[in-house]
Structures are given as C-alpha cells and as structure tokens.
C-alpha cells in the first residue's frame, strides 16, 4: 500500500486550480471530467512523480461546517514543505495572500499559516538548519 494522492476540500475547483497553480506554484497533473465536477490533481514541479494533491469539492454540508470550525481556530487543513518559510511568506504576501500566522520558529521548525481562499488554512514549514557545532 502506498500513499499516492492526498486531498484538500475546496469551495470552487476552478478558483482553487488558479490559486494552487498561479499563486502557490503547483502544476496540474490530471483532469478528468466527472459531470458537474472534475477529478483534478496537482503535483509539485520539484517532484512531478511525487504525491498528488486532489482538489475535491466540499459540497457536503458536513464538510463546510468542519472547514469553518478549523479556520475559526486557525487550524491548517494540511501542510507543505518549503526551503525558506520567510522567503515564501514574503513572496506570497506580495501576491496578496493572507497569513493567519507569520513565520514563527518553534521546536526546531519554522512554520507559517496562510488562507487558500477556498475555505482552508495551509501550513508551510521548514526544518531549521542544524546549528553548527
């Protein structure tokens, strides 16, 4: 058994596709029409054969309530790794992205939390370089 796809529940697939590709920088991998919606997955250009992220519709009312309460408490739906959290924060802020938590160092990691405009918060994280000596 392998993990090949993970998913995020979005309020609008087209809007999500734009945000996750044009702003975050992921690339579209598969798109299969399924009536009203699509099976839509993305990969990181740094890892095109890696785990795919599916953008799934959040139509179920339970999903919407779940997302709303997570966002209210600032809880990220999922997380992505970056090289440099501060640099990514600055780049995304320049593109108008809202952060609920600026880059913060804690427990050997630097993390920040941003709004994906599709009803989710996302964490970006980097391990801190090991101190010399």
């Amino acid at each position: 058994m392998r993990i090949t796809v993970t998913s995020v529940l979005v309020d609008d697939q087209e809007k999500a596709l734009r945000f996750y590709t044009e702003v975050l920088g992921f690339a579209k991998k598969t798109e299969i029409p399924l009536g009203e919606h699509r099976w839509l997955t993305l990969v990181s250009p740094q890892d095109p054969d890696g785990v795919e992220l599916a953008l799934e519709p959040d139509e179920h009312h339970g999903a919407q309530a779940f997302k709303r309460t997570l966002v209210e408490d600032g809880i990220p739906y999922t997380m992505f790794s970056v090289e440099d959290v501060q640099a990514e924060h600055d780049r995304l802020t320049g593109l108008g992205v809202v952060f609920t938590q600026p880059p913060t160092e804690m427990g050997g990691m630097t993390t920040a939390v941003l709004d994906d405009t599709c009803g989710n918060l996302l964490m970006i994280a980097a391990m801190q370089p090991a101190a010399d000596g």
Partner: protein
Amino acid sequence: MVAAVGDVFKALADPTRRAILDELQERDGQTLFELCTRLVGRHGLGSSRQAVSQHLDVLEAAGLVRTRRQGRYKFHDLDTSPLRAVTERWRLDRRGANP
C-alpha cells in the same frame, strides 16, 4: 467590564495560563492553533486544544485575554490592564516602606 481581582489571581495561578500570557506578550493576534503549537514547541506543554481553549476562557473571564473575530478567524490578544488593580491595592511606590 472590570473583572474581579480574585479572577485575576486565579487565572495567574496556573503555569500553562502564564505561558499563554508569555506567548501573547510576544505577539498579539494569535489563533488557538498558534497558541497550542507555541505551548508545545517552546514550553513543552502538550495540552489538548480543548484544555488550552478552557484556559483561554478563564483568562478571558479575568479580562487578561481578549478575543476578536476578524473575518472567519478568531484571534486572541493580551490585555494587562487588570494587573493594575493588583498594584493599586498593594502599591509599588509605598511611602514609608523599608528599602
């Protein structure tokens, strides 16, 4: 409304609640998630989110923490003004005090 002084003492009596105030002093406007992460990462306090939420309720009742909704997010701010009641009752600049 000004909270009773007793509530302030009770709120400050717990080490996790004091750690929450320490973290909010460093940065206002934190979500519950950020506070929980800071408590684990910086204080080694692995309290559940529910427990931290209850601590925040106590701090808010004492007037030491204020909650504000901004859009869909809920942020917490530090308010040190209830501490004034403590130093007004037992003054820091008491006349006739031994040095």
